[in-house]
């Protein structure tokens, strides 16, 4: 158990701009490209929300053997491929000291819909016992744990918007609490037609409130989130164990916290303070004052933008202005459960390059708020 920093020693990502370890993520970030474009997974018909950042099937298949590709649902394939890449990137040992934390906003709805469709079409005889386990949201973590032989703790966290960064923060806490020496932590989600259609129907995707879909995060229109998909995981390790094996440490996670804002951006009311929460306590201390760069949760949702900036101003004071607006990666990779972990990976690359400390800030539609600070190793 350690109360101090946790080492970040590996990155694995399968996203709309490609797949790989730390080098692949660095290349994707440096390219300046966006993976968002017209929907390819299905014909949106007359649906107003027609954009998405989708993952090429080849990117997934490259990371898996034929058996894995056949056995696993698509979202499990994404998670397993990225976890494998992260473990390889870190060179961390598998076995009873390795844990897994998976964050997801939606889980495996593809399997859930497939499972119940069998019943609705053919009654009890139409149910597939092989599909049922995938309807439980921990299916991605279970598949990843089996694949990388992670036999310490395995946790799945379900959260809106910030599932990936919450999973990383939870992974840090698990190491600090002594539940694992190393944790593969990150997030995953996939584009799935029924979910996309219902989110659009509920007004949660661009164009929000009937605006046109071309808006991007921080653009004047701020039309709403463009959905993405993919999986990004980082490997976190007890720094003593990492040093002992000469691990390639990219960054140190010096602080990780999460809390709840008393009202959510879409629940109405004014932007509240959360001065007593662990996140605010962290940011109002010396760690917040020293931050030189900030990644934020901005994803095109105007209320989320405004609330995030107001909270950062309240906690960081005058120092906030040099960090605002926070760097957003949603325009390039789309909003999905892996995005927060991708931001953590980007911050780790910054820290490895000497730009540090970096704050990765998250704020969810639900009011869940996260903060991680990464420093140079």
């Amino acid at each position, binding site marked *: 158990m350690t109360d101090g920093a946790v080492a970040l020693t590996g990155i694995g990502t399968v996203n709309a701009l490609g797949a790989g370890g730390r080098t692949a993520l660095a290349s994707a970030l440096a390219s300046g490209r966006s993976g968002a474009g017209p929907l390819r997974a299905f014909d949106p018909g007359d649906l107003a929300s027609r954009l998405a950042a989708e993952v090429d099937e080849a990117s997934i298949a490259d990371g898996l053997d034929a058996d894995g590709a056949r056995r696993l649902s698509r979202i499990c394939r994404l998670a397993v491929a990225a976890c494998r890449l992260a473990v390889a990137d870190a060179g961390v040992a598998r076995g009873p000291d390795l844990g897994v934390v998976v964050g997801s906003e939606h889980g495996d709805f593809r399997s859930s819909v497939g*499972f*119940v469709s069998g019943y609705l079409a053919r009654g009890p005889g139409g149910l597939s016992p092989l599909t*049922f386990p995938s309807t439980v949201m921990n299916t991605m973590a279970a598949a990843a744990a089996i694949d990388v032989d*992670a*036999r310490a703790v395995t946790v799945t*966290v379900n959260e809106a918007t910030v599932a990936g960064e919450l999973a990383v923060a939870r992974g840090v806490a698990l190491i600090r609490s002594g539940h694992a020496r190393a944790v593969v932590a990150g997030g995953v989600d996939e584009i799935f037609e029924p979910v996309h259609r219902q989110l659009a129907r509920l007004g949660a995707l661009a164009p929000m409130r009937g605006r046109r879909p071309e808006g991007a995060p921080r653009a004047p229109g701020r039309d709403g989130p463009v959905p993405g998909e993919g999986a990004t995981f980082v490997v976190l390790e007890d720094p003593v164990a990492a040093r002992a094996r000469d691990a390639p440490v990219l960054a140190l996670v010096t602080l990780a*916290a999460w809390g*709840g804002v008393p009202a959510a951006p879409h629940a109405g009311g004014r932007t509240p303070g959360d001065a007593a929460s*662990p996140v605010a306590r*962290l940011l109002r201390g010396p760690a917040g004052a020293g931050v030189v760069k900030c990644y934020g949760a901005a994803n095109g949702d105007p209320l989320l933008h405004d609330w995030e900036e107001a909270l950062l101003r309240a906690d960081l004071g005058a120092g906030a202005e040099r960090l605002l607006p926070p760097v957003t990666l949603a325009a390039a990779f789309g909003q999905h459960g892996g995005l927060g972990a991708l931001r953590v990976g980007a911050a780790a690359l910054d820290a490895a390059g000497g730009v540090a400390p970096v704050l990765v800030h998250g704020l969810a539609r639900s009011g869940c708020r996260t903060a991680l600070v990464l420093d140079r190793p």
Partner: protein
Amino acid sequence: MSAVPGRRRAVVVSGLGVVSPFGAGVKAFWTGLTAGATAIAPVTLVDTEGFRSRIAALVPAEAVAALPASRRRSRGDRMALAAAGEAVADAGLTPGERRAAALLVGAVGGGMLEAEDWYWEETRQGRPSPRVGALRSILPRSHADVLARRLGVHGPRETLVMACASGAAALALGADLVREGVVEVAVAGGVDAFTRICFMGFNALKLLDPAPCRPFDRGRRGMSLGEGAAFVVLEEAARCRARGGRVYAELAGAALTTDAHHPTAPHPDGDGMVRAMEGALAAAARPPAAVGYVNAHGTGTLQNDRIEARALARVFGEGRVLVSSSKSLVGHTMAAAGAVEAVATVLALEHGMLPPTATLVDLDPDVPFDCVAGAARTVSVEAALSNSFGFGGQNVSLVFAR
């Protein structure tokens, strides 16, 4: 989570809340557990025509109707609100204490039952259903969002999805936050309302007994589903005593492990189960002999019970500890099970009475333990362990002490 260095503190349970197939409230739960009559009965909530098993332990309709929560909320949200509300009131937390408390919810089904109503209607009628609003609470995290808002709990919030070990994980990780000084108080528990998808799924896997489940019985044929919610308030021992709070028990240790073996089946040697139990005992700084009672995962499936018994024998020695399964009384309450059974374990310690394996008649010779068959038994024990093992080989053991 940022812990305060050097602060590792004893964590106690200072509040309890339950909604179970015996009705709403801790009193109804304990009365039902010790009466020893199973709550498993024919399912009337959904159509069960054509399924192998057509029974489950559901929260009685009149109890659901009387829950102190809006009927517009999902069944799961209403159960969670009632149970967590009872726990917070039982602990006597002030609004200020609640505001800074952590909230950890083990969940799987979310508002799926109501979402199924919507999906069934749209699919069968072929046109949009006005029930689409049910989708707003379909996800497991819905419970935590509702609890945070309604109870004013705004500290670190997590929804943990670890299948049947979800509720136990919430208690284990909530205790960490208190023990390490991240928060003073944590509200932790689990909830799962009955859903068609779960009922159909376990039927498809042929893991449901057509008759009420009989954990550890030679003739057992599978499990019975249940539903419910259970929450506890966890806080640092000295703080609880200083404010005059009630200490039910100490949550002395916990461990979480993974089999990494199979998507649904446990490791045949019970390797992950053994590591969870041994880890929890080590965290509690207690030898196996200090534990007098195990509230087993005890599902009633052939495989689980045999492997859990094998794992118990490796940790405690054959016959060296009393074992019972609350699932014989309230069914398998899924994501809530770990929390429901943790509350049963705490109450067993407090009352000096062990809830029985109510439906056990003919003990399986592969289960070399006294499984408290049939009726509750008056036995005072100093420490007890509660096991929860989920799909995906995710194992949690909790050690409670008087």
